[in-house]
């Protein structure tokens, strides 16, 4: 195995971060430059949004259900079983809904984008596109970024709702709680800050998923092996970045929104 010098390694990493930032700037700047590829945006929104719906619904539902189940164990000790609704609601809307949805979509779409664009890169289709007078950043990257940001916002809302429904089902069937009490608790505990935090996160995570997937795809080199590498890197990088960013965004919003 060839050893790499630490200086070279650091330089490569810094260069990659710099390239990624420029890539993001370019992708966003294209929103204000003609031509706009609305059809491609719609096609991507369908593939990302509608295509991810089944896994998002399943993940959200069972996350809410298991949350209710786990919470019941602790709450029962304090005689507060009726607070299950509050706990499920706050956890799903603030945290689990956006984060789990984003991780699911990252697994499905960030890697998908990297492999699709990576394959196009190594088979010279991206070069062909440029040769035919089309900017691949405008045609391939910007529509994916817009579609992911837009659809993840709604997918997170769907995930929150089905998560609450999952928790509600467990509360009624297994914990024998009154449904109306569960939903009333779940609803009343939510404040503006919770909802705002729950809705801003998917927008940021959607941007991470699409830009990371496209970035690794557009930089894929070295045939099918390179495409495989880009796919794995995109999946890992986007998942890790989502979790890291989640901490900082939560901390920032808690400070800014004067959270209780």
């Amino acid at each position, binding site marked *: 195995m060839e050893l790499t010098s630490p200086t070279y390694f650091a330089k490569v990493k810094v260069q990659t971060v710099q390239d990624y930032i420029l890539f993001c700037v370019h992708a966003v700047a294209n929103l204000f430059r003609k031509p706009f590829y609305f059809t491609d945006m719609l096609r991507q929104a369908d593939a990302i949004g509608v295509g991810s719906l089944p896994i998002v619904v399943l993940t959200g539902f069972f996350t809410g259900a298991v949350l209710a189940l786990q919470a019941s164990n602790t709450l029962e000790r304090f005689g507060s079983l009726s607070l299950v609704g509050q706990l499920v609601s706050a956890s799903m809307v603030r945290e689990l809904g956006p984060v789990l949805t984003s991780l699911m979509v990252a697994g499905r779409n960030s890697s998908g984008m990297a492999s699709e664009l990576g*394959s196009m890169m190594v088979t*010279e*289709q991206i070069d*062909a596109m440029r040769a*035919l*007078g*089309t*900017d691949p950043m405008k045609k391939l990257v910007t529509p994916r970024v817009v579609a992911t940001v837009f659809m993840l916002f709604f997918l997170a809302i769907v995930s929150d709702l089905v998560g609450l429904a999952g928790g509600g089902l467990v509360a009624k069937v297994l914990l024998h709680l009154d449904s109306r009490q569960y939903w009333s608790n779940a609803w009343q505990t939510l404040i503006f800050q919770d909802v705002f935090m729950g809705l801003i996160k998917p927008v940021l995570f959607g941007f991470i998923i699409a830009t990371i997937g496209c970035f690794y795809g557009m930089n894929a080199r070295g045939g099918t092996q390179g495409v495989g590498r880009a796919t794995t890197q995109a999946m890992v990088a986007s998942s890790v970045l989502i979790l890291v960013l989640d901490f900082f965004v939560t901390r920032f919003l808690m400070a800014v929104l004067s959270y209780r």
Partner: protein
Amino acid sequence: MVVFEDVALGFAENEVLRGVSFRLARGETKALFGVAGSGKSLILKLVMGLIRPDAGRILVLGHDISQMREEDLFKLRGKIGMVFQESALFDSLTVRENVAYRLMEEHGIYDEEIDRRVREALRFVELERTLDLDPAELSGGMRRRVAIARAVITQPELLLYDSPTGGLDPVTSNTIIELIVKQRDVNKTSALLVTHRLQDAFTMATHQFDTQTNRMLVLPPGQHCAVPMSFLILRDGKVIFDGDLSALTQSQDEYIREYIS
């Protein structure tokens, strides 16, 4: 048409092109030779502005593209057609959509007009019946022919062929060369052709397309084709030969003699 002035290009510590200079006149076809990794395909990508040189100047259709912005290059590329090494057809589009790609991107062209021009381009490469097929359903030779149709649909002033016969059997290769000769003689398009197969370039230099019989015919001995045809050989990142067929066959350079033998 195309002028290279002392162009250099390298990757990491590997200097691929070291001061390459040549000139392609209007209407001329130039075949580029060299061993694998000598930078032949890079020259085509430099002409297209897909990569930028480290040093030197490149003039294409009167424009210095060495420092040109990408947005301006898109306009210039509209006058150039390129056939990529592995065809580079878009997998997600049908043959019709691939060939029509540039016209569809231009906007403002009616569907009927696009359809007419796509059929015309596919008729040129004798693949009119593949209109609704996906690229995956085509053979290697058919993919190259579709790539040629895609490149010629806008009647570009300059055509770049990157190993158009690479990996094909001799019969299919001959069909592709016949199409290139047809484009050269019928539409008088200037071209740069990268190839590993010397016989392809020799065939082009010794044959002419006959529109009466719709076939490529061999020229009588001593007679050259009406369109100027030249050869350029690269070695160690430099041009070691740039001239016509007779100069090539009469060259005393040991490397060239060995190369063409």
